């Protein structure tokens, strides 16, 4: 990662790779549809199903839980009388004072997570590009400093950040969250995108520069479109991590900027634990990352590949 290599490497691999997944279909994977189905094939399918049963069962169970009423919560397993009460509670449609303004938290999470990823992309793309393309004094130190934040336990900074935020008025503000989320999102994005840029032969943007474009235009018109899968994948991962972050919003927000992770837990307090409402809240909070993932699915697997692998 922090090794000192000449910035102008020629990766002849990069062009065919960037051209897409033409290789994928003909890759090492054997397409079982291309030949008669074997016993082994069915066995492997069963193994696949077994893993997904393990992976998806808890989610299906959470889904069921969200439709259970409070008095059937702990006495029923698969057969119960479904009710929408939990969703009503989450969406603020039930009139009880026990309701939590969850949709407000939902909006807060959207603002904070999107904001954090946007800021990280805005400052992270040029930085990643510079780290990949230029050799300059202190580059490695700066890069490693940036990355080392990912090694830091979040708790290590939380009290100092709390004090600062109180002093400068960022406590319980979206901007405060967006800023502190940079600890999560920025290293991830710089790390992945730097490898991306390194994978891309510099001659593409050099060619653009000779073709009459300035450096900025070359970056925007030639490089960015090529690393789109990487940007999409890195942004999605960063979004998921920011969206799921608990300790930062928990300590650094109050009622104004609180997020879904903290909000969903609020249903676990009170006179009795409302697992069903928490389940509904968890499922509703699943929607944004899911929608995002589905909309960029075609980039995802490819996007992760070449970014992540280069140290």
């Amino acid at each position, binding site marked *: 990662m922090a090794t000192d290599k000449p910035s102008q490497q020629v990766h002849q691999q990069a062009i065919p790779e960037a051209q897409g997944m033409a290789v994928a279909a003909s890759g090492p994977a054997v397409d079982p549809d291309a030949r008669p189905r074997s016993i082994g094939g069915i066995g492997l399918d069963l193994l696949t199903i077994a893993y997904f049963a393990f992976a998806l069962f808890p989610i299906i169970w959470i889904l069921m839980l969200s439709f259970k*009423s*409070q*008095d*059937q*919560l*702990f*006495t029923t397993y698969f057969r119960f009388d479904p009710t929408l009460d939990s969703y009503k509670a989450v969406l603020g449609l039930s009139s009880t*004072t*026990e309701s*939590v303004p969850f949709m407000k938290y939902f909006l807060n999470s959207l603002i904070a997570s999107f904001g954090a990823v946007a800021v990280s992309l805005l400052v992270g793309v040029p930085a990643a590009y510079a780290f990949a393309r230029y050799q300059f004094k202190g580059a490695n130190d700066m890069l490693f400093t940036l990355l080392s934040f990912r090694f830091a336990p979040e708790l290590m900074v*939380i*009290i100092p950040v*709390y*004090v600062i935020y*109180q*002093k400068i008025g960022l*406590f*319980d503000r979206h901007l405060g969250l967006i800023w502190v989320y940079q600890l999560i999102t920025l290293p991830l994005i710089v790390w992945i995108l730097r490898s991306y840029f390194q994978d891309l032969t510099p001659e593409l943007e050099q060619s653009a520069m000779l073709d009459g474009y300035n450096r900025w235009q070359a970056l925007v018109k030639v490089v960015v479109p090529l690393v789109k899968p990487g940007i999409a994948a890195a942004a999605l991962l960063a979004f998921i991590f920011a969206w799921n972050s608990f300790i930062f919003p*928990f*300590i650094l927000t*109050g*009622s104004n900027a*609180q997020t879904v992770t*903290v909000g969903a*837990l*609020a*249903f*676990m*307090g*009170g*006179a*009795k*634990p409302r697992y069903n409402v928490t389940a509904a809240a968890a499922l509703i909070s699943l929607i944004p990352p899911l929608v995002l993932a589905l909309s960029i699915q075609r980039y995802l697997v490819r996007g992760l590949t070449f970014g992540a692998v280069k140290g």
Partner: protein
Amino acid sequence: MSRSNRPLWMDALTARRSRRGVIGTAAGFGAAAFASKLPLGPVAAAQDSAAADITGDFNWKREDGKKIKALLNVHPYTDALKADLQAFTDLTGITVEYDEFPENNYFDKLTVDLQSGQGTYDVFMLGAYMVWQYGPPGWLEDMKPWIENPSATNPEYAWDDIYENLRTADNWSLKVGEPLGGGGQYALPWGFEANTIIYNTEVFDKLGVAPAETMDDLVALAATLTEKAPGAGFADMYGIATRGSRQWATIHPGFMTQYSREGGKDFELQGDALVPVMNSDVSVAFHEKWAKMMKESGPANWTNYFWYEVGTDLGAGKAAMIYDADILGYFQNQEGGSANAGKFAWHPGPKGPDGSLLTNQWIWSLGMNAKSQNKSAAWLFLQWATGKDHLTMAAIEGNMVNPVRASVVENAEFQAKMANNKNYLETFNAIIQDTKILFTPQPTFFDATTLWAGSLQEIYGGANAKETLDALVGDIVNAAE
């Protein structure tokens, strides 16, 4: 599974002993001084208090137009408060903003804020134990001067209407080991929980058993229930649920209540030194008995039981009885609160050998931030929130049980409301005089009691009780150094 095969982790525990052994010799711990009896923090003198600035006639509108910020725990008390907040604003012209967090995280949030010294929240909820942690650093406002200033406090406040044991619980000299009472009033009692037996009458009736009156009877009763209930149509039912997780909260409800009734103590003052005595003979015997009861008649996975598993198992008909907060049963007993709502009854629990009904309590209190910039407005809020009007309304229309004011308990409407909770009021009246904080006040309460819970888990897992408790005492002494 582990009920029969318990020695599985004996080896690990033996290793633990020697691990601690490296720190010091266990023999020395019994008499080791844990802390000397010195004042810990700034004891605010009455004349320094901002309360002294308030003069003239009492006036609810004194701080009209001000805004205060509250940190609240997600709780039925809080729901009752939120429902009534408009009345406060109408009365005083003060608006209250609040942040609300679930209990598992609430105190961490509060601690971070108080620690930062930023005074974000003017008022907040806290328990009596928290006074021991938050008081000595000077984070809490002493409210004695406020209560005693007639210009600041409304004439109908009736401070004495609040049960004396509850008032005393939030009153401390900030001196390690010195008993409660006789110092500053660092929080105001708001609502409380006493720890009792709550049981499923359907099971008890069907099996023809009655609540236990001694500890040995309780152990035997729990075993009987575990043995017979599943055969009597109560599938998967076991005898008794209590908290068992690795948290200080495992010690303070049923465990501490019965521990004290049996004569157990946490610390003793020896001269000027406070000494942990969880390794006394009485204590060792009780730990063994309790662990045996939970092992034989408690839930599988007991070491992961928070208060809500305890309540949940009672409500779901899995636990025949619980030894925990009386209100935990109350919420399960409410219509729609659980599958067995309406079937629960209360009992004070086994008496000690000397007939003791000492009962430990948890008091949700309200406190004021010493760094608050709005102390006068905050005080108006606190006296309103702990005042007769709000608490009466909250107990009757909301779920503010147990009430901290005798007048509310005696209120006919409240009595009527509680009547369908079998023996609730009888139990309440039987123990209220003996319900107090049974721990010794000292600032490392949370560290020490968390370690204590860990030791109880180890004994439950099969470790030698005497050795484990010796090590616990050693660890507590070490932690304080």
